[in-house]
C-alpha cells in the first residue's frame, strides 16, 4: 500500500487538509496503512495506561506522610568506592536511545527495501533492547538483594517507593521484552527476504510488507518515549 503516499501530494495541507480528510470518503488518515493506523491508536490507548500509572504514582507520592526515599542516592552505583548518582540509569538511557536511533535507521532502510541493512539494524536494536532488559534485571536484583527494597517496604522511607518502582519499571520492561522478541523475529524475516516476497504470515496468513518494520518502529520508539517520562518522574524528580 505504499502507492497510497503518492495520492497525498494532491491533497490540501494543514488544517484545511484536516477538514478535507475527515470530510472525505474511504479513509480519514490519507495514505496511512491499516496496520500503522492500528498501532497509533493502540499506542494512544497504551499512553493512557502509562499515564494512569504515573498519575497514580504522583497522587500517592503527594499524599504519603512518610519520607519519600531520595532516588539520587538509592540508585547510585559505586565506582571505585565513590557513589555516582544514577550512573546505571544514565547508561540504560544511553542504550535505549541508541536502540531507538538504530530502529529509526532500520525503518529508513526498510523503506528503501534494503533487506541487509534493515535486518542488521533491527538486530542491533534487538541487542540494545536486550542489554537494557539485562541492566534492568541487574538493577532490580541490586535493589532487592543489596538494598533490601521490596514491593511492600524498604529501609529508606515510604513503602510505596518500591511498589511503584517495581510496578512501573516492570510494566515498561515487559513492553521492552515483547519488543525485543518481535525485533528478533522481524530481523530474521528481513534477512530471509519475507518482506520482498510478501510471504504469508504464520498466524494471520496476511502478506508481509516492509510497512511492518515501520509499525514495529512506532512501538519501539513509544517504549523509548515512555522511558523518557519514567526517567524524569521516577529518577530525577
Amino acid at each position, binding site marked *: 500500500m505504499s502507492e497510497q503516499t503518492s495520492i497525498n501530494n494532491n491533497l490540501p495541507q494543514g488544517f484545511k487538509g484536516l477538514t478535507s480528510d475527515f470530510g472525505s470518503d474511504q479513509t480519514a488518515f490519507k495514505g496511512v496503512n491499516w496496520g500503522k493506523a492500528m498501532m497509533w491508536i493502540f499506542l494512544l490507548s497504551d499512553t493512557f*495506561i502509562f499515564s*494512569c500509572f504515573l498519575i497514580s504514582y504522583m497522587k*500517592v507520592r503527594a499524599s504519603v506522610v512518610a519520607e519519600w526515599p531520595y532516588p539520587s542516592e538509592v540508585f547510585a552505583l559505586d565506582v571505585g568506592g565513590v557513589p555516582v548518582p544514577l550512573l546505571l540509569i544514565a547508561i540504560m538511557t544511553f542504550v535505549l536511545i541508541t536502540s531507538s536511533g538504530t530502529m529509526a535507521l532500520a525503518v529508513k532502510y526498510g523503506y528503501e527495501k534494503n533487506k541487509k541493512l534493515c535486518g542488521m539494524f533491527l538486530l542491533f536494536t534487538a541487542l540494545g533492547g536486550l542489554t537494557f532488559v539485562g541492566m534492568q534485571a541487574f538493577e532490580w536484583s541490586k535493589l532487592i538483594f543489596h538494598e533490601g527494597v521490596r514491593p511492600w517496604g524498604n529501609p529508606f522511607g515510604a513503602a510505596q517507593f518500591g511498589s511503584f518502582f517495581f510496578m512501573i519499571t516492570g510494566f515498561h520492561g515487559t513492553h521492552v521484552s515483547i519488543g525485543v522478541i518481535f525485533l528478533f523475529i522481524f530481523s530474521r524475516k528481513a534477512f530471509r527476504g519475507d518482506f520482498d516476497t510478501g510471504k504469508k504470515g504464520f498466524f494471520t496468513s496476511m502478506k508481509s510488507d516492509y510497512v511492518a518494520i515501520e509499525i514495529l518502529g512506532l512501538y519501539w520508539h513509544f517504549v523509548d518515549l515512555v522511558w523518557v517520562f519514567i526517567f524524569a518522574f521516577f529518577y530525577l524528580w
Partner: protein
Amino acid sequence: MSEDYYDSNTSYKAQSSETISSGSGSVSDIDYVKPKEVPDQELYHGHSFITKYIFCQDAKVIGVQYTLTAVFTGIIGLILSWMMRMQLGFPELFPVLTSETYYQFVTMHGMIMVVYLLTALFLGGFGNYLIPLMVGARDMVFPYVNMVSYWMFFVAVLVLMASFFVPGGPTGAGWTLYPPQTLLEGTPGSGIGIMLMLISLALFVIGFTMGGLNYVITILQARTRGMTLMRMPLTVWGIFTATILALLAFPALFVGAIMMSLDKLLGTSFFMPTIIQAGEMLEYGGGSPILFQHLFWFFGHPEVYIVALPAFGIVSDLISVHARKNIFGYRMMVWAIVAIGAISFFVWAHHMYVSGMSPWFGFFFATTTLIIAIPTAMKVYNWVLTLWKGNIRMNVVMLFCLGFLITFVNGGITGLFLGNVAVDVPLSDTYFVIAHFHMVMGIAPVLVILGAIYHWFPLVTGRFLDEKLGKWHFWITFLGSYSIYFPMHYLGFIGVPRRYFEMYDSPYMTSAVGMNQFISLAAFIVGAAQFIFLFNIIKSLKIGKLADKNPWKANSLEWYTPNVPPVHGNWGDKLPVVHRWPYDYNVPGAKEDFIPQTTPPSEVKDTGVEKT
C-alpha cells in the same frame, strides 16, 4: 476484485465512466465518486467446521458469538437479580440467602450487566456484525485479531464464572470494588474471588482492546467509495465513539486492577491505608483508597456512555426506518454523540461527591455534568422531532424505540438531580440512585437492544421474529420495569439505603413494605418475560415467517448485500458505491418512499432529495 483500484494518476474521465457502469446507464458527472484508494482486502475463508463457526475470522460470526455469550452471562445476571429481589421483598422466605451471598450476587449482577452484557453486546455483538456491513467493508480490517478478541472475552467470562465455584465464592465488594473493604476479610470472596474478578477484568480489557482497534480502524480506514463520515448511519457513529471511549477509559480500570491485585498478592499499599482488621493491625499503610475511586470512575463514567452511545445511535436508525422519515438534524446528532463522548472524560467524580475527595471538585464536576446534559437533550428533541408527522409504523421495533425514549428521559432527568452536589448528598446511597441508573443505563439500553434484535433478526437469519409474542414481550417488559423502578424513586426519597441486605423494622421501611414486595413481584414477572423472548428466538429460527431481502425497506447498506443473510466477504464481486446518507425516506417526488444509499443522483434527479 482488484480492478476497482486505481492509481491516482488515472485520468478523471476513465474513472467516472467506470464508476457509473454499475448505475443506470446514463453517464453523467453528478454520479462521480472518487476512485478506490485502498486495494481490496484479502480474506481467509474457513473450510472446516472449526474455522467456519468456532475459530472463525468472519466478523458476522464473531458478532453472533459475542451476542450469544453476552446474552448467556446476562441471563445469569438476571437470575442473580431475582435472588436479590427475593431477599429484599420476602426476607424470611429464602433462608439459604445469607448476607454474604446477597452481597456476592449484588456484585456479580452489577459487573455482569455493565461490562459482560451491555459492553460486550453493543460493541462486540452489534459492532462486529454491523460495522463492516454498514460502512461497506468486506470484513474487519484485522480478522485474525478480531477472532482472538472474542476468545479473550470468552476466557474472561469463564474466569468470572469460575469465581462462583471457588472457596469463599465470588467477591462481594459491590461492582465498584472499592478498597480497602474489597480486600478485608469481612468482605465475602476477599481471597480467590476478588483475584478472579480482577483477572477476568484484565482479560476483558485486553480482549476488548483487540476488538476495539478493529472497529475504529475499519470505520476510519476501510469505508467503501462514497462513504464519508457524514454519510454513515448513526449506529456506526454511536459504536465508533463508544469504542474510542472504551479504548481510552479501560486503561484506567486495567491499571486499577493491576494495582489492586498487587495489594492483594504482594502486600503493597497502593490503595490500602493503615488499617485495623478485627482488632489486628494489618501490614498495610500509607495507600490512597480514594485514588482507586478516581481510577475506577475515570473508567466508569465513560463506561456509562460506552453503553449509552451505541444505544443512541441504534435507536436513531430504528426510529428513522420505522417512522419513514429522515433523522431530524443528522449533523447535530453526530456532533452531539462526539461532544458527549469528549465531555464524558471530564465528569467522572460526580460519582464521588460523598467520598471525601477534595471539596472543591464538586463545583467542577457538577458544572461539567450539567454541560453534558445539553447534547443529550438535543438528541432527545431530535428523536421526538423525527417522529413528528412521520409515517409511524407501530410494530414491535417502534414500540421498543418509544419505550426507550420515555425511559431515557426519565432516567436522564433524575440524573440532573444527582449531578448537583447539594441534591446528591441526601440522595446518594439510596434507592433513588438505583432507580436512576437502572432507568438510564439498564432499561433504556436494553430496550434498544431488544428493538435492534427484532429489527436485524431478519438480516441475520432470514426470518422474522413473531410479532404477537414480541408485543407481549414489550408490554410486560416496559410496564414491568416501570413497576420496578418508579416506586424506587419514592423509596429513595423516604431514605431507604441501597446495598442493605435486609431492612428489618427500620421506621422508613414500615411504611413501604408493601411497595417493596410489589417491586419484587414485578421483577419476577419482567425476568420471566425475557424467557418469552428467548422462546420467540428459538421458535422463529425454525418456523418464523420468511423475510424478503429488505423487509423494512431500509436504506443503509447492510440490507443490500447480494446474499441475505450476508456471506463471508459481504459484497460478492463488487463493493457497493455510496451516493447519499441512509435517511432518504419519503423524499418528495421519489417513486418509492425510500432511496437506498447506493442509488446514484442521476436516478433521482427530479426529486426533492437533499445533497448529503
